[in-house]
Every structure is written in structure tokens, then in C-alpha cells.
């Protein structure tokens, strides 16, 4: 209020306007990207979650009906949610632990490290569909070489993608096989840990575990956090491998009178992203698909916020 009434010189006004325009000009790529690829889709998703919309006719408002349908009547919604959360917890944990373990091992290798790096990175380059089909072939309970080998050793031969108890572990194995991306990131982080900190720890009598716990981990913890957060977000969108594995293992090609059964076997690989596709593009129920998409968004945000808050708490206590 104190500034009210004080005349601003015209030259200053022009300067401010020019600065504002320049600022917006620099910001515009981000603003456009944010609006087109985040704000608009998000607001649209919220909007359509309250609409009846089949993708063909004009949308009409139907209140909370889509939400009620998803939570109360949509088959296996809760099973799909549990499967997705199982994959988030188990798959992300094992991928991060395995990626870090492989990264640690390779940084210790004195000769032939390049060969090992290549060997572990190569599977990551395989297209997900091809990799999943290859795994379905290898893990075929009746004809696959893995069970033939296990059988020769007198070990139990699981049903893998054909057994509801083994289908998610089989998908986790597939995810760990393609660990190359995480391994490279961890290797770079591990090689960046200052050598002198290890030397100081050794002088203090630290063993391998203590060096890992008190030197390596504090140095690479931001990378671990990055791996966990991106892993959670990726796994919440887990779709391709689950649907391909289910389709190949079930042997059902789909078609009239022979519908493809999502989540084969027994709904054990049924995930939230598959529900978005099923509702939106197979049942033409865009409104309910938007509800699932929002649930995915909220869970992803909750996981990410929780992880980031825990991490900032840890950093604060370390400080």
C-alpha cells in the first residue's frame, strides 16, 4: 500500500515489460511442454473420470459412477492393485540390490571388466516383447530348457508363467536379467567415491562391510534414491512384459468366442496399467480408465514423496 500513488517512470515500465517478456520467452519451452504433456493430460484425466465417455459419442457427466464401478464392481481391481504393489516392492528392491551388487562386482574386476560390462548390459538392449517371449520359451514348464535342467538335477520344476504362484517371480527374474541400465548408473557412482575415504577407513581398521556401510553407501545414496524412485514410477507403469508373458503362456490368441484373459494365470499378472488399456480401449469405458490412471498417479506420487521425505530426513540427521 505504501507504494500506491508513486508514479513509475515510463522508461522503467517499458524495461519491466521487456524483462517480463524475455522471462516468458525463456520459460516458454518449459511452459508449453508442461501444459501440453502434464497439466492438460492431468486435468483431462480428472475431468473424464467424472464423465461417461466411450471415445465415440460426446462425453456426459455421470458423477461418481466411474469411481464406484472401479472400486465396487470392476472385476479383480483389488487383485490388480495388490499385484502392482507386489511388483513395486519386490521387483524394485531386487532390481536395485542386484544392480548395485553387479556394479560392485564389476568395479572390483581387474581384467576383462569391459567384457563383463558388455555382457550384463546387452540384455537391456533387447526389446521388452522379444525378451519376454524368449523368457516364456526358456521357462516353458513342459518344453523349456530351464525346467529340463532343473529336472536333471532332481530339483522341483515350477510352472513359471503358467503357475499363479510363480508368474510374478518369473517376471521379476526377467526384470533382473535386463539390469544393464541400473548397473551402468551404479558403476559410475561407485567409481566416483573418493579413494582416500576408503584408505582412511582402512587405517581405522574398517572391514569390507564397514567400508560399504560407512563409505560407499553415504556416497552413492542419492543414486540409490534415484534408482528407487524411477524404479517405482516405472513399475507402476508395468504393462508390456506382464501382458506378453500372459498371452504367450496362455496360448490364447483372442478373438470372438475366445477372449484373451488378462492377468493369466488366475489374474496373477493383472496390473493397473493393463486395466487402463482394458477399460479404455477394449471396453470403451474411458471414464473408468481415467479413474485407474488417477489411482496410479496418486500412488506413484505417494511413494515418491515418501521416499524423498525419508531421504531428506536422513540427510538432515546426517548433517
Amino acid at each position, binding site marked *: 500500500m505504501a507504494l500506491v500513488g508513486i508514479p513509475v517512470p515510463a522508461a522503467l515500465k517499458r524495461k519491466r515489460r521487456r524483462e517480463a517478456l524475455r522471462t516468458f520467452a525463456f520459460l516458454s519451452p518449459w511452459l508449453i511442454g508442461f501444459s501440453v504433456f502434464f497439466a492438460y493430460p492431468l486435468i483431462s484425466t480428472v475431468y473424464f473420470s467424472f464423465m461417461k465417455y466411450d471415445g465415440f459419442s460426446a462425453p456426459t457427466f455421470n458423477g461418481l459412477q466411474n469411481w464406484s464401478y472401479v472400486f465396487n464392481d470392476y472385476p479383480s481391481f483389488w487383485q490388480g492393485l495388490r499385484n502392482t504393489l507386489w511388483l513395486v516392492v519386490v521387483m524394485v528392491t531386487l532390481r536395485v540390490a542386484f544392480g548395485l551388487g553387479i556394479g560392485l562386482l564389476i568395479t572390483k574386476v581387474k581384467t576383462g571388466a569391459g567384457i563383463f560390462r558388455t555382457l550384463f548390459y546387452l540384455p537391456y538392449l533387447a526389446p521388452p516383447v522379444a525378451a519376454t517371449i524368449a523368457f516364456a520359451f526358456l521357462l516353458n514348464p513342459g518344453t523349456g530348457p530351464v525346467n529340463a535342467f532343473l529336472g536333471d538335477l532332481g530339483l522341483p520344476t515350477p510352472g513359471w508363467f503358467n503357475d499363479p504362484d510363480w508368474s510374478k517371480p518369473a517376471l521379476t527374474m526377467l526384470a533382473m536379467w535386463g539390469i544393464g541400465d541400473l548397473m551402468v548408473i551404479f558403476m559410475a557412482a561407485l567409481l566416483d567415491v573418493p579413494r582416500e575415504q576408503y584408505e582412511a577407513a582402512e587405517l581405522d581398521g574398517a572391514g569390507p562391510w564397514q567400508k560399504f556401510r560407512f563409505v560407499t553407501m553415504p556416497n552413492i545414496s542419492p543414486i540409490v534414491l534415484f534408482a528407487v524412485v524411477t524404479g517405482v514410477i516405472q513399475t507402476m507403469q508395468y504393462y508390456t512384459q506382464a501382458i506378453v508373458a500372459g498371452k504367450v503362456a496362455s496360448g490364447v490368441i483372442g478373438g470372438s468366442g475366445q477372449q484373451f484373459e488378462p492377468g493369466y494365470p488366475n489374474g496373477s499378472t493383472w496390473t493397473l496399467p493393463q486395466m487402463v488399456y482394458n477399460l479404455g480401449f477394449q471396453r*470403451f469405458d474411458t471414464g473408468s480408465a481415467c479413474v485407474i490412471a488417477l489411482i496410479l498417479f496418486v500412488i506413484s506420487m505417494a511413494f515418491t514423496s515418501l521416499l524423498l521425505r525419508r531421504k531428506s530426513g536422513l540427510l538432515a540427521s546426517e548433517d
Partner: protein
Amino acid sequence: MLSRRPSRLLAAVTGSAVLALLATACTGTNSTGGQDDSAAGKDVTITFWHGWSQDSETKAIEDNVAAFQKAHPNIHVKIVPHIEDEKSEQALRAGGADAPDVVSSFTTDNVGKFCSAKVWADLNPFLKKDGIDPAKTFPAAMLKYSQFQGNQCSLPLLGDAYGLYYNKTAFAAAGITAPPKTFSEFEAAVAKLTVAEGDGFKQLGFMPNYHGYETSIAHLLGQYGPSYFDGEGKSTIAADPKVAALLDWQKSLVGKLGGFEKLEKYRTGFGDEFSAKNPFHTGQVAMAMDGEWRTAALAEEKLPFEWATAPFPVPDDQAATYGRGYQTGTIIGIARGSQKQTAAWELVKYLTTNTDAVVSFANAIHNVPSTFEALNSPKLTPDPNFRTFIDIAKNPNSGTTPASLNGGAYQVSLQNLGFDYESGKQTDLKAGLAATAKEIDAAVNQAK
């Protein structure tokens, strides 16, 4: 002052988004189709999207379209092959100049949505104008899967029929002289044809598990002739005793063959359905339920055994209906947004009702003709094994799965119950059927 800029910015972004939303809210394919001047002899070019991809199939389509163009020199057809349903759906949603005028689809389950959302034009006025009586032109089952609640938004363009394939050599070895006609005879044949080996089988008479390729619950139910929905569109699977009868019969057969787990273990050793490793081709199963297309694959492969086809057996209490089978097929329709519907109808009419066109197409791609006249045409050149499926298509007791507002969702619900029941996860069939019917009704209501 600093805090006001972000809020203005947010307001601007939100405002733009809301405007965009309002704009999209007004979209939707409400445009009505247009007539064109093709009837007056003016040149018109229409676009026809279809899903066939093999050389023999695309050539057969091209030949038929060439014959059409010869008869209609002013109508030019641009053919776009190998279009999957998802792509044509998106194009029909978007509309515009590049959208197709005529579309075919292999997924008859989507007819309910196509018709109710009026994405495909209602063909009833065209049929009436040209004096075509659908009931006298197309077999009942084929007509059923090409319409929804009286809206004939598509027409059948060749069909598929399901029957029994059997290994004649194995039949002879087991002392069976004729294909079974009833489920009792079928069970006896299955028992004779099943040869145990270790924990599994050297040869299985029949794979009853619902994942046994074409042995799906809907295909098997074709032998019972069930109802899926009542007049009000409510699920009847819990009320129709035929559904429970099939589920019980199948589970009983699974039990007689050693149980679900044993059969599943054997099933996972099967090769790909559409390859030479198909279990019927390899002799792993002696009888299989399959469509007419298998005759062409089997004839090409020169198998080390003799085989033949017959209608699939029927329940003992419906022995009089022997000869029936499940039917599905390809449908063809006109985009409602097309501005060249007069010319588009001429093409659809030719492809679906011209006997020579239907017969030549059926002969070329080994599918079942989709009109009565074509089914009885002397120009049809089926061998005895293919003749079985033509007879199934002609049989008035043959059935199909009806169109539903939300596609094939009701079939998935029923399938899931079947999987649960055959594996023992669901033991109370009555409760399972009631819950599944409720699930189907809720899904249909959601789609309304």
C-alpha cells in the same frame, strides 16, 4: 508481488487447459454420413480398410474389388490392407478426409459398441432400399453377430465354423469306427484314445482344459445353444441350466483324464497353435475342436496319419441337434461419418451379397461363405473335410456369442469362472454363476 506472478501463470495455464478441455468436450463423431453422386454416374473414390494380410488373401480381395469396379466403373476403390481393429477404431473416432469409408473387422464382439455408438452406419435403410431381406440372405448365427438391438450396422463377410478334427489312424488303432455324435460317445472315444506315459500322456484323446487353444468355453457352449442375455439385456448365464451343464460336463471330463494339474502340465508342452507344432498335427491329441481354416493347414502338411472332420458332438439330451457348431467371422460396415455412403454401400452390397464374389472369396481363403446362396452354390469347391463346416454353417441350430454393449467383456467374465471351476478354485458353481452374472450386469450397466 513475487507470489502473484506464479498464481497468474497458474491461472493462465489452467485457463488454457480448461478452454482446451471444453473444446475437446465438444468433439465426438456425431456427423451423419452423406450421400454422393455415384448413383448419378459421377466418379467417386472410396477407401476400404481390411485386416487380411497374407498374399493369397489380399489378392482375393483385390480380385473381388476389381470385379466390382468393372460393374461400377465410376466407383474407384482405394484398398488399404492389414489394418488392425485398434487402428480403424481410432480412424473412425477421428473422422476426417483420411478416414475409411468401408471397414471390415475380425472382431465381431465389437459390433455392440460400433452399432450403439453409431460409429458404423445403420445398413437397414440400404437393405430396405435394395429389397434385400437379411433373414433370407444370411444364416441366422452370422446375422446375429453382425447386429445389435435391431441396428444392422454391419454384414457378414465370410464366416468361421467350429467342428471336430479327429485322427483317423488313431481311431482305427483304438477300434473306433465313426466320429462320436453325443457327449457320451465322445467321452468313450476320449478314454479309448488316451494313452498314458509316465506321469503324463503319450497321446491324449482330447484336451478339455479351457486353455486348450480353441476349446474355449464359448466355443463349447455352441454345442448347447445357450442364451447369454435376456430381452432386457441382463445376463442369463446363472438362470440358463445349459451353462452350468457345460461347466459340470467339462469338469467331469477333466477329472476323468487325471485332473486339471496333470492336463495343464501336458498342455504346456504343446507347440504354437498356428504352426506345425499344433498338438493335433503332432499327434499329441487325437481329437480337437477347431475352425474350418485348419483344413487348409493340415492338407498342406502331409501328416504321417490320416485325419478327418465332423461336427463336434452335442449333449446327450440334445442328440437331435447334432450337426450344429459355434460360428463367428468377419464383418464389414460403412463409417457413419463417410460422405460417400451411396458408393460405399454398393461395395458392401457387392462383397456381401453377390454370390460369385462371396464364393470366389471363400474358395480363395478357405473360409465359410456367408450367404445361403453362396453356401449352396455349385461353384463352391470344398473337399469333404471342408464340406463339414459348410454344413455346420447351414445348420439352423448353429449359434454364436451375441453382440454386447461392451464388447466381449461378458465372455471374459464367464471364462474366468470356467478357469476357476476347472482348477478347483471355485467349488460352488451356483454361487459362481450368480456372482459372474452380477459382474456382467454391472459391466453392461457401466457401458450404458
